[in-house]
């Protein structure tokens, strides 16, 4: 069969509809290929690997991977969607921290602020207290010079002196 050349072929109404159909099919195939190019859908294990690092927004201290609430189911779907878009684990966790707050990640983003500052504050406070206590601390002085004990001491001194004299005489 001889195919008419160039513009004559396109102007021919007999070929317009089949040509349009071919173009639509070709385009849809091309677009489908683009969708599949993102890779296979993430498995539940892949989703749960990320979900394990996040926490339920409704129940306290319940990791996202084991929480049965509707809110957590939606969040897991969100993770699945982001994984299929090619987002990394860190990117997903960052997104959750920004969107739902650091409480959802169970791990503060600004670790310096969250861990170091309280420790430094406690140590500084302790150092201040130690120095203050040292300044206030005085040696414990026991007063033992009551008149009775003084008299006893004088008596003992005389006795020791007599004993020493006696010993000298015997020598």
């Amino acid at each position, binding site marked *: 069969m001889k195919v008419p050349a160039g513009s004559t072929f396109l102007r021919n109404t007999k070929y317009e509809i089949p040509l349009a159909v071919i173009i639509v099919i070709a385009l849809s195939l091309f677009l489908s290929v683009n969708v599949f190019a993102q890779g296979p859908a993430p498995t539940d294990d892949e989703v749960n690997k990320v979900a394990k690092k996040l926490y339920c*927004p*409704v129940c306290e201290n319940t990791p996202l991977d084991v929480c049965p*609430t*509707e*809110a957590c*189911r*939606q*969040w897991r*779907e*969100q993770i699945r*969607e982001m994984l299929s878009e090619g987002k990394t684990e860190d990117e997903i966790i960052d997104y959750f*921290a*920004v*969107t*739902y*707050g*650091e*409480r*959802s990640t169970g791990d503060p983003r600004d670790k310096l602020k969250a861990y170091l500052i*309280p420790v430094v*504050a*406690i*140590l500084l*406070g*302790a*150092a201040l*207290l*130690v120095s203050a*206590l*040292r300044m206030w601390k005085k*040696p*414990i*002085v*026991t*007063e*033992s*010079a009551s008149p009775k004990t*003084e008299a006893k*001491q004088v008596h003992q001194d005389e006795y020791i002196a007599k004993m020493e004299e006696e010993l000298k005489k015997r020598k």
Partner: protein
Amino acid sequence: MTETTPARRGVALWIQVVIWAFLVSLLAIVAMGLSRRQQGTVQPGEVIDNFPLTFYSGYEFGGKSEINFEELRGKVVVINFWASWCKPCEQEAADLQEAWLEYEPTGEVIFLGVDYVDTETGARIYLKKFGITYANGPDLATRISQYFRIAGVPETYFVDKDGVLRYVQIGPFSSIDQIRAQIDPLLK
């Protein structure tokens, strides 16, 4: 006559102080957490501070995708916290929308939907399902809900024209009359 008693030997003083400081800090943190929990929501009579609110596209406020709350001074503002995963929220969704349609023409009342820890996909399905048209946006990083100290969803806050909180509805409204009963006195 005087005599000095030597200092007792044991754990060094600085170690003791560090331990005590740590324990006191720990107790202070626990006490703060408990008092915050018992404090409840922001109370009627308090002036609501300024906060930014971002909107979902298609649910902007006056064509703006972000506003500051203080821009709404002079209007009665109804702030509704909700989520698409929240079943009780569904009970009041239609009433809120109906009330919005009733007050929107007056230009004196603003309805704001604050979507609490929700996915945008879920939120859009919910908004579409109940035909909600008033401004709605996510509670980014839960800053707004933390400010209002909400205990859950749904919760609705009625703020008067001077920015003073007048009423807090914990849980869903059972009828549109309940909503009207809170807005109408604020319009007088």
